[in-house]
């Protein structure tokens, strides 16, 4: 589903991403871990079309992200760590707008918006302006708007920032269930417990290089440690947060 082939990105003389090769099959929940500045967000930005790679290619469902970026974006959804929202739209209007962008038929968009609003507890905020929402409610709205067009691939940068325990549980369950139904999820996080809980496969990146890849058990067997935290620290030892 996602195929990354010798991907690299340089910022001037700094190599942010060296030679990343990775394949994420359909229906997998893939967690990308790494210390700050390791190259996680750079990878995500390249995959979502925000950054141009210096080397290599990446395809999404066979679509080259450079040549067929538009078609690739049609089937993906992206939730950044600091999402942009139109402050002077209401929650419903923002979802209508997103549905329009992805050509979701109006009737279907209305039904899906209702379902997602109910699921995320946004029912009472239907006509509220986004500028009046708290950070957590904004995050919930982002999930609603992104899931509205049923993306085949979902990219998430730090999925649980600012959410309450109830919504965290809700999102974890939703992601696992969506993957069971065929959606591919590629997420980056610093919360190792989240990766341990829900990831089908984990990749650990350090200083632009992929240093480990596998399921939770495979990582433990190969690199030691009682839990993911031990494994992560073993693999990235020597690298401090910049």
């Amino acid at each position, binding site marked *: 589903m996602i195929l990354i082939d010798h991907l690299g990105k340089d910022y*001037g003389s700094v190599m942010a991403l060296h030679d990343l090769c990775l394949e994420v099959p359909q229906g997998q929940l893939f967690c990308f871990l790494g210390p700050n500045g390791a190259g996680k967000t750079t990878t995500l930005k390249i995959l979502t079309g925000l950054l141009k790679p210096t080397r290599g290619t990446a395809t999404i469902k066979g679509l080259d992200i450079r040549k067929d970026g538009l078609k690739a974006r049609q089937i993906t959804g992206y939730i950044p760590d600091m999402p942009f929202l139109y402050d002077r*739209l209401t929650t419903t209007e923002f979802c*209508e707008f997103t549905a*329009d962008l*992805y050509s979701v038929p109006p009737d279907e968009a209305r039904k899906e918006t209702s379902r997602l609003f109910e699921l995320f507890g946004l029912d009472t905020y239907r006509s509220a302006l986004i500028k009046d929402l708290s950070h957590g409610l904004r995050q919930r709205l982002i999930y609603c708007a992104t899931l509205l067009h049923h993306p085949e691939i979902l990219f998430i940068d730090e999925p649980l920032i600012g959410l309450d325990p109830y919504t965290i549980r809700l999102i974890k369950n939703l992601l696992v269930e969506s993957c069971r139904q065929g959606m591919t999820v590629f997420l980056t996080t610093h919360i190792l417990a989240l990766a341990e809980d829900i990831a089908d496969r984990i990749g650990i990146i350090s200083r632009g290089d992929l240093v480990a890849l596998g399921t939770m058990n495979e990582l433990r067997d190969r690199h030691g440690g009682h839990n993911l935290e031990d494994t992560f620290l073993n693999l990235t030892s020597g690298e401090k947060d910049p």
Partner: protein
Amino acid sequence: MSHLHALNRKNRCYWRNTGRIFREQSRFKVMFIAAFAIVLEGGLAALFYDGFRFLSELGGAGTVILNRLFALFFLAVGIMTVISSFVITYSTMFRSQEVPYLLTSPFTLTDIVTYKFLESAVLCSWSFFFIMVPFLAAYAIHEHLSFAFALWNLLFSIPFLGLCAGIGSSVTILVVRWFPRRNRIARTVLLLLVLSAVLIAYLKTWSAGSEDQLQFNLSALLPGLSLATSKWMPSWWVAEGVMSLVRNDWWRGVMLFAVTAANAMLALLIVQEIGQRVFWDTWQLVSFGTGLRSSTPALFTRLRDALQILRPDVRGLVLKDIRTFFRDPMQWSQTLIFFGILAFYFANLRSFRYHLFPDAWRNTIAFLNVFSVAAVMCSLGSRFVYPQLSLEGQAFWTIGLSPLTPVRVLLTKFLTALAGLLPVGVALMALSSTMLRADSLITALAILMACCLASATTGLSTGLGAIYMDLHQRNPAAIVSGFGGTLNLVLNLVVMLATIVPLGALLHLRNTGILPDARFHMYLAATVVWLISVTLASTIVPLVLGSRSLREREF
């Protein structure tokens, strides 16, 4: 549904909700702003009408200027729109948080560029209607033109402003793409070229116009006149097209409208084409740059050394503000554009032969120049100094929890802004007086007024910025457009008029011989006392109230 259609629908919702928010605001605030706008528009219309009457009474050159003034007006609006478009395009295309969102949504680059260009075009041109409406109304009344004149103007203005915005946007994208931001040699060469051009222009103007050349012609008096009426200029198409339609010369009017509209569409196509080719690369360059910058510009290092005399905490705050200013292209570019245009105009005063005018005229021009410098200081104060404390916003815990007292924070902000405005204002006034060959009294008064206005503007903007501090808002434009920001702008204008008008009137009365020299000196002393009193009051009172508000505030 096309993506542009979806954006259009989103914009309709946005404006509907903006109207809703506007209706929910205090009625006093809305009425205050409306009354201010009406008074301003009415005042401008009266001023323009008086100007037209003066020109027609002048006869000869005055009548010729009046006939061509319409084209000259559109040339001026066009140039201002292009300049405004530089700043607005940069912020809407390269600094807007909406762009990454659009780039990850299924939009084509053409859609994104078109949408952002249209947004820039609207943002950079709407405010000119505030100048156009009173000017055109006064012109229509003076020339006894029908209501259709307004209609044709509106019709022509849309493609004309679109064309100017298109030129500005294309240039901005190309400059941002290829501006040598990291190449020191290229930057130095570029700077030297610009300085050489300015020096050549200055030397030409210095040597121009000796006393025996007093018989200047019309084009020397108003250099833009021949350019504005050139058949290749859009300003001429608009002026001639509107007047043709007013005269019921339909064929010529429609043809000129078609020319203007076709060129506006061509500008859109050029923006789309440039955008499609370089926008994405340029946006990446601006957003992600060339990676982590480890170097600290030498200027900042030297500045730190130079500021060693300050207390460490005050020095930290000053350095932080200076760094923020130079690293925010919106701030330095607007300051550079505003003051740069004035400096260019003042340096070229001798090209207009203004220095050969009689004393009364030179004094009038000198005071109009004081007014223009004051207006720029006032707008910069309102735009950049006023929101300074609010913009500390969520980072206020850093300053708020530091050993810096609120009063010291306020005074540091005030003095830093004053240190920036004062030398520029004084230098501009000195340049203007030198180029006009104004006498020493006028030069001294102009410089004194620049000092007073810099202090008053900075004091008012800093003080009111503390009183109406909004720590939750991160958008400076939203902070400025709030009640405090509007009040600050109005008070700045009031102070500006209260300082300039008495002195200007006094000098005018002396030049026209109404006031004898003996009484003039007495009145001058009284006016200077008034000027200093107004300055002290508008500097100290807001700062005292602002520091009291800061002390009592809970963060």
